[in-house]
């Protein structure tokens, strides 16, 4: 079957927009605007018995998943969140310098931590305690887990770029580092810029996008 260009345009716009679109806006994008009625009716008919249907609500059109399967089908969507800055810093220090105690981490970061970051990283399953350091107080030593490596897509901890490689890859380049951070900060709010409130980090996360 040869699909008419206007059909394709309507289909794609309705799909890509993700929310209902005004009839006039749809017409606007067509090559032969006078065919709108016929095109949209054809499309509606075409999708009538499929997994997605074309629906008109008010003067807007949209695709939506079919009523006929709604009872059996539950979609699991994932809400993606970024770690707080405190947590990602803590995680990176553990990753590079494991095994390491909490006070050693605090030393490197130059700030005291609440329980938040460590607890939270442990809850996600990216770090775990592994033995105790043989100094007074016998503090717990922290290491990263298999799950951590899985999530970040590395096979071995030694695969992490070392300091020279970070430098050579541009991570330590002052200019680009600043540019990158401000770039991102402007466009996507990736990381909460908060050092405090470790206890509340769970609420700090920014839901990013969702997917199944």
């Amino acid at each position: 079957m040869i699909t008419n260009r206007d059909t394709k345009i309507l289909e794609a716009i309705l799909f890509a927009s993700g929310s209902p679109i005004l009839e006039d806006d749809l017409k606007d994008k067509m090559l032969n605007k006078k065919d709108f009625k016929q095109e949209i009716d054809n499309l509606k008919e075409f999708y009538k018995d499929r997994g997605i249907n074309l629906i008109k609500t008010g003067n807007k059109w949209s695709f939506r998943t079919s009523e006929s399967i709604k009872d059996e089908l539950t979609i699991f969507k994932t809400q993606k969140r970024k770690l707080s800055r405190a947590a990602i810093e803590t995680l990176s220090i553990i990753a590079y310098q494991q095994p390491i105690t909490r006070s050693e981490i605090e030393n490197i970061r130059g700030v005291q931590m609440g329980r938040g970051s460590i607890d939270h990283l442990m809850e996600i399953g990216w770090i775990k305690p592994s033995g105790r350091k043989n100094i007074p107080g016998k503090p717990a030593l922290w290491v990263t887990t298999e799950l951590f490596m899985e999530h970040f897509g590395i096979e071995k901890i030694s695969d992490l770029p070392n300091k020279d490689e970070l430098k050579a890859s541009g991570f330590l380049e002052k200019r680009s580092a600043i540019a990158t951070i401000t770039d991102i900060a402007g466009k996507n709010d990736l990381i909460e810029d908060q050092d405090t409130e470790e206890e509340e980090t769970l609420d700090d996360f920014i839901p990013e996008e969702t997917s199944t």
Partner: protein
Amino acid sequence: MLDITNEIEDSAPLKQFNITLNSYEGPIDLLLELARKQKVDLSEISILELTEQYINFINEYQDIHLEIAADYLVMAAWLTYLKSRLLLPKEEKSEDHTPEELEEALKYQLQRLEAFQSVSKKLYKRPLIGRDVFYGGSSEGLKVKYNITYSSTLFDLLRAYSSIIQQEEKPSNLTIAFSELYSVDNAIQRLKSIFGEVTEWTNFLNLIPKFNSNKIVNKSILSSNFVASLELAKNGFIDVKQNNVFGNIFVKLRKS
């Protein structure tokens, strides 16, 4: 994940002479651009001709811009060497590589870079998410359950760690800004080049470069040229005289 759409920055190829080297990604890229101007298949290219073009290009470029990245000079020197090897009668197997081997190696490098440049363009012309094609859809009408995952990436992790290291080693770099001041070496070279014509006693002030608006730079022009003239006098290259204290200084080429 960042939803980024990218566009290749158009880099201007050879337009006219006052191009900047910044539009090239290194000496091989420049060679490749010069080779393309020969308009023959890369495997047929005359390396000797290309070598000359490259060396000429660099020489002329240097005359105008003075500064030039080391990479380009090293390549120029390498090519000069290659050229001499190609032109000179063959030596008895004193070297590990024959000129033909070197020539072949250079051709290979050019062809390989060209191949990758061309596939990189092809790759980038593919329909790209966020630029040419789009995800979409809506789950209206379906039951949705949410669960949470963390989208922090390896990049985030490395960046976090890098910023920590960077804080630790903050004052390690000292960048010395490029100086506009005139050096004695420059002044000597410059004076040497113009003294051919100075056969009569000439006021020193007429021989130095034009002053500009910056006082400190002007002082450096004056003092570097003065020291240079003393140096040249000491070497017997010129004569210097001053008729009275704080008076004008006159110089001329010493007749040999």
